């Protein structure tokens, strides 16, 4: 075997890493390209053998400055951006954004549009949780579940594609409603999907939930206490896994969520296994919501009256939705006109990831992968 690189090799002078306090420790770089960091995330690990002494996430590889773009675009021009922040579950992002303007300007949304919004958002939540289950198991070395969950995802993506036109980065909601109505075919396919999905739970329970190796890899790993969650501002399934039943859909209900009867699954120990169970049970609760919404779906227009050129009053406004990963808040400061003065987007995975340094002290590398996987991070939403 000859060395074909030869004399034309490019020499890169890398700065040696100085000031490692302990000679027995070494630095390991997880990412930015790595199969387990879901997106472009770099985690700088100081390792003592197999144990992680310190974990520092390094962000910004996907930073696009969405908040500056929002200061130069009116709401219609910025709508597609909202679908690209969290691409795995983009409809709640759409929802928060348009509902923000509706709250600020007092725009009425027809009932049918609200129901359609809820149905599609919950379908999107199901899709996101399926993706997460597959990816988490893939991180742990089980190559099969991801294909089963992607099969379920395909059913939903086909349904949503018919009505929204996209499979991933949705731009479906408008201020005042949604941009296209749902028809009987959509309702039929959704009902068929709900029935099919309920039967699929037995497969997931056999293959994953009861799998002794999976349980051993996730039980007791990455325990987040409620106090830690409060200090870091953790929300979503990560928080609910630690036993706090906080869900924006019940706490500060928006849209037509008060009309539905659903539960908030919580875990007890705050470890990775509880976070997995919470998300699995949330899929079932989303199916319940969709069923009730389909039963209650009223007739009527799907898009209310909204001015083409928005005239915002001066002042600030905040809107919070329950995205698939936690609490998503849009905070808008307007100085009049139709372009925001400032739009702050508070993203759930941002706070969830910031707990990593405290969580991962003296943890095995494999446990770090399991804990990070269980937090369900999507890096583009963190980087915005």
């Amino acid at each position: 075997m000859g060395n074909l690189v030869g004399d034309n090799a490019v020499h890169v002078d890398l700065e040696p890493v100085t000031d490692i306090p302990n000679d027995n420790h070494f630095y390991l770089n997880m990412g930015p390209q790595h199969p387990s960091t879901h997106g472009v995330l770099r985690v700088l690990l100081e390792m003592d053998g197999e144990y992680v002494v310190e974990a520092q996430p390094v962000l910004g590889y996907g930073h696009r400055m969405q908040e500056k773009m929002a200061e130069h675009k009116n709401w219609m021009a910025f709508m597609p951006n909202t679908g690209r922040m969290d691409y795995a579950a983009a409809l709640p992002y759409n929802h928060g954004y348009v509902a923000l303007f509706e709250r600020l300007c007092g725009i009425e949304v027809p009932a049918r549009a609200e129901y359609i919004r809820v149905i599609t958002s919950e379908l999107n939540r199901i899709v996101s949780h399926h993706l997460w289950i597959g990816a988490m198991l893939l991180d742990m070395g089980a190559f099969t579940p991801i294909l089963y969950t992607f099969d379920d995802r395909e059913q939903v993506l086909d349904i949503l594609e018919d009505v929204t036109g996209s499979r991933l980065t949705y731009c479906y909601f408008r201020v005042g409603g949604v941009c296209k109505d749902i028809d009987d075919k959509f309702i039929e396919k959704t009902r068929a999907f709900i029935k099919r999905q309920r039967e699929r739970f037995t497969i997931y329970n056999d293959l994953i939930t009861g799998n002794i190796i999976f349980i051993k890899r996730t039980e007791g790993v990455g325990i987040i206490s409620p106090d830690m969650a409060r200090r870091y501002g953790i929300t979503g399934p990560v928080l609910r896994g630690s036993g706090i039943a906080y869900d924006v859909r019940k706490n500060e209900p928006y849209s037509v969520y008060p009309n539905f009867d659903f539960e908030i699954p919580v875990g007890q120990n705050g470890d990775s296994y509880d976070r997995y169970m919470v998300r699995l049970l949330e899929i079932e609760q989303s199916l319940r919501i969709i069923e009730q919404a389909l039963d209650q779906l009223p007739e009527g227009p799907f898009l209310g009256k909204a001015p083409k050129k928005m005239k915002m009053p001066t002042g600030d406004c905040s809107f919070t939705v329950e995205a698939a990963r936690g609490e998503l808040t849009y905070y808008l400061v307007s100085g009049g006109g139709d372009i925001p003065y400032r739009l702050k987007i508070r993203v759930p995975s941002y706070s969830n990831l910031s707990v990593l340094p405290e969580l991962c002290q003296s943890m095995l590398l494999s446990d770090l992968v399991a804990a990070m996987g269980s937090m369900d991070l999507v890096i583009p939403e963190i980087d915005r």
Partner: protein
Amino acid sequence: MHPATEKLVSALKELSIQVDNCNYEERGYHFEIDLEADKLRVLAECMLAQEMFLGFVGGLHVKPAIEIVYQFASFERACRFVVRVPVAADNSIPTISDIYQGANWHERETRDFYGVNFTDHPNLVPLLLAEEDVDLKPLLKKDEDLKESAELRWAAPVEEKPEAEKAEQG
């Protein structure tokens, strides 16, 4: 008003912090506080003691001084606070990252975008921007776009409905 929320509001009043009720339907939050920087840490400690969590820390570039916006909310009931604090003349403000560790990253990001210095922050290096873009400060507005802080507040009076009926959120 929920008893825990009442307790929180009276605890804040004891620290001589003015709490204004807001119309939730219009604004999306329940209480608004305009604060001086020296009372910031006391407020944060009170919030943590009353079991609120930190939503976000963001910046707002206005005249005369950049304002840092904090949003606090509760896990147990609907109770959302927006706190606005103008920075000092030398563009600095105390950090609350030892009280709320989640503020660590939010403050780093605000420094990236606005150049505000959070005194006593343990690790104030760029978070989202690259290391060489330390002085980029992308969200600072140009002079012709900059507005007064008073221009960006609600024109109509805050209190529109009777307090008891409107504040029945929690």
